[in-house]
């Protein structure tokens, strides 16, 4: 891409939003930052070496110099913020998940299509090196069909971490009692991001013990579950076991893809190593390094499996090249909606439910 092409971005959300690399992307200029909290606003200004700051997203949207906005606000605000940004004629990238309800999924797609803007979900699993590998080997035909997959996201919310995420100045944050399956994309992204399969049916079970975790008895979501496990069928008839759990002592985001001709295992918190196993071949245990795909200034390890620079680079390049980003609105909803339906299934004791398809006809 010609380095003279510049995409001017605004970044909103000085927590997770400060973990990206907009200032190092060759085709990007950080035009402004925004956060309701002064300390986080300052954090963004320092991080991105940006002197222009707004006190809200609503103010930032009015800035005509901004081409795109990176939204790292709380989940309940995602769709409202994304729709507002696209209605203002700007592209947007947003933290996960894309939405909390099926209705919100429709609103998001409608806003994207009506405004003809780029939408990207910053799903980190898509650019973890193990997922990139699975996607490559699926794409080049080495994998065959992925018959069965196990995808999981474990984040134990106990002790000080629970308190820091669930409370701010004594008030409950949006995370307080948040349902695991309404945060499914760190799991579902492993399969959708590898094969672009759609998860079309689900049976999900949930577990929560309000006697041990009072948030499960009293939260704005009416959520009694701290741990949920779903079994999906895909549009190609394959099987995917998907876990999202806050209440177990395990940590990390990983997958195991079992295919016709090979299987791939992500590294795990229990010391499991990365491995590709295929018939007649010595197992591959070296995790491929895809940082070569990044501009030189962005080639370093980051959080979420090194995915942040990839997400940054992909969003800017998609705008600069006027193409749809990889995790576009349809892929984002394909990762998000199955969790929404899974959560409904958990309330019905694991009843098998259909997941609607939001892809363009």
């Amino acid at each position, binding site marked *: 891409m010609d380095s003279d092409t510049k995409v001017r971005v605004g970044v909103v959300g000085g927590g997770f939003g400060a973990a990206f690399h907009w200032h190092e992307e060759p085709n990007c200029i950080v035009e402004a930052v925004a956060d309701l909290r002064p300390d986080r606003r300052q954090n963004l200004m320092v991080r991105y070496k940006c002197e222009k700051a707004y006190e809200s997203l609503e103010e930032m949207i009015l800035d005509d110099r901004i081409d795109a906005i990176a939204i790292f606000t709380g989940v309940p605000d995602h769709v409202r913020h994304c729709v507002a940004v696209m209605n203002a004629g700007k592209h947007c990238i947003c933290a996960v998940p894309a939405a909390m309800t099926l209705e919100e999924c429709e609103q998001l797609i409608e806003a994207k299509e009506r405004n003809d803007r780029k939408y990207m979900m910053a799903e980190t699993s898509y650019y973890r090196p193990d997922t*990139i*590998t699975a996607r*490559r*080997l699926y*794409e*080049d*035909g*080495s994998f065959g069909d992925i018959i069965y997959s196990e995808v999981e996201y474990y984040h134990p919310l106990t002790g000080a971490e629970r308190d820091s995420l669930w409370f701010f100045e004594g008030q409950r944050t949006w995370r307080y009692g948040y349902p695991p399956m309404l945060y499914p994309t760190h799991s579902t992204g492993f399969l959708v991001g590898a094969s672009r399969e759609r998860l079309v049916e689900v049976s999900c079970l949930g577990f929560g013990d309000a006697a041990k975790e009072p948030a499960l008895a009293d939260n704005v979501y009416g959520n009694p579950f701290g741990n949920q496990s779903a079994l999906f069928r895909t549009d190609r008839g394959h099987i995917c076991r998907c876990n999202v759990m806050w209440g177990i002592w395990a940590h990390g985001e990983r997958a195991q893809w079992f295919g016709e001709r*090979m299987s791939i295992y992500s*590294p795990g918190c229990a010391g499991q*190593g*990365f*491995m*590709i196993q*295929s018939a007649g*071949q*010595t197992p*591959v*245990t*070296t*995790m*491929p*390094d*895809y940082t*070569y*795909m*990044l501009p030189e200034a962005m080639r370093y*390890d980051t959080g979420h499996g090194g995915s942040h620079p990839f997400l940054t*680079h*992909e969003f800017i*390049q998609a705008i600069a090249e006027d*193409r749809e980003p990889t995790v576009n609105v349809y892929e984002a909803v394909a990762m998000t909606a199955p969790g929404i339906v899974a959560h409904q299934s958990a309330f019905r004791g694991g009843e098998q439910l259909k997941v609607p398809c939001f892809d363009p006809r």
Partner: protein
Amino acid sequence: MLVLAATALLPSVGSAAIDLGDGVTAISGDWAWSQDFGPRLVRRAGPGEATAVVRVAGEGQSVWRCFVEPSVGGGVAGMVFAASGDLSEGLRCDVGGFPAGGFSLRGAGGTVLWSDEGAPIEVCHAYVIEGIVEPGRVRAQLLDWDRRTLLSQSPFVAADVGGRTMGLVAIDAAARFWGFETSTTPLCELTKDAPNLRRLSQDPAFTLTGGGSWMWTDGARTRIRQYAKAERAWAVYRPSRGALRQWHSNVRVSPGAGGAGIVFQTDDQDHKTGFTCWLGGTFGAGCLMLYRASGEALWASAEDTWHYDTDYILVGETKPGAVRVALLLGSDGSQIAESPWVAVPEEEAAHEGFLCFHTWLGSAEFWAFADGAASSAPRAAESSLGDGWLTFGGQWAFRDAAHDALVGTAGGARAVCLQPALSGSRGTWRVTVVAAEGGTEAGLVFQAAPDLSKGFLATLGPGGFALYELARPETPRWQEANCRWTPGRPYTIEGLVHTDRVTVRLLEADGRVLAESPATYVTQENNERTGHLGPAVRGGSATFEAWSVESER
């Protein structure tokens, strides 16, 4: 002069050719474009050979290059260059085809002109392959995706080619290709120190297991490094076999690696025996750990004991019925952490094995192990006997109040008592020894470094009379197994250090020479290096007296 001719392997451009756009024409096989931060030409998985012709951009016709990213399956993927329009004539450089990967220069039809079977080709890793054509000769080289790091390089091979076409080929494998270009300047000039000449897989001193890419870091061959981001990799140093002694290696762990260390007294197959001295725990800020090589944790220091990109010395040591490890700072040898002696079964501590280097989830570099592979170096004195004598293991005492004789007793591990005041370089080093019955080995350490990492050792024992370098105290430089001597009688051991050479002699009390080694050539470093004298004992007790250093005039 080799003239490359057409073969049956590559088909002609025929009716099946498909224009894939962007200057690429598929001749055979299943090809498609993919977008991945730029266009990539994918040869999809399938049996047999797939070929495509590429229109190249760039200057000149002397240097041809492209990126290739091999997929799984062990097939071959490469570039045909300086080829005829139908690819029937020309040259080919490709990756794959060998157990470790491999990089080859071939005729267009596959005839091998040169190959590096040990080139470590990783799945889904991007490489640059380059062919360099000069009048009457050609060479090929393989670089990492950064276009700077040379991975393999052929010499010039006689060949006569002049075609102007580039092609791509993938055999029994999927692969990605991009960045097709010609140039007048290669990315790397021909070098005498190419990595393919430094691979440990080609060095009989090492046995490699697990993943990884082990190499000497440069032509000096003093440091080895595991370069790959491999899950686990082991390199067994075969000259190091032994037990009941100290082992060491310097180590530097690269950022991102999960850990690195040495396994000592281990086997060369699955490394289930012996002990591991390991920098583990928190990545980059973890602890020194002692494991059984089978995986059982025996001891660990506090976290935040070691860090990335810092030089350390790992020390592992066994004595009868016990094992311990230590971590020293590489810059000054100061001790950072040390385990206590951990009790283990006698037979386990005495189990002979090799020194092995081990990495987990990343890269690390090891050096100064040729000494440590079988030495007691570097070794800190455990106590001072008095009169300046420093003891290294065993029990030492003056025979009487005159302090002109020492009595040393030791078990299976050799013990030394060093006198720093007795120093010198070239000259004659001498001690008189009376060894007890029962298999005692008694000897003279001479021109020895204060930590016993350098210098020499002459021993009289069940194996006869022998000369060792302290850097390899289990491998004699010279040995006279038939030397007849009698326990309980006095003998004089002499070490003679000359320019570039060392000789040892064993003399009766009357001066008669019982045994004498030939002049043994050693590193010229010893010509000027100042060292010290000390008696040594193993497997019993011995009395030493009449020690002296007579410097060469």
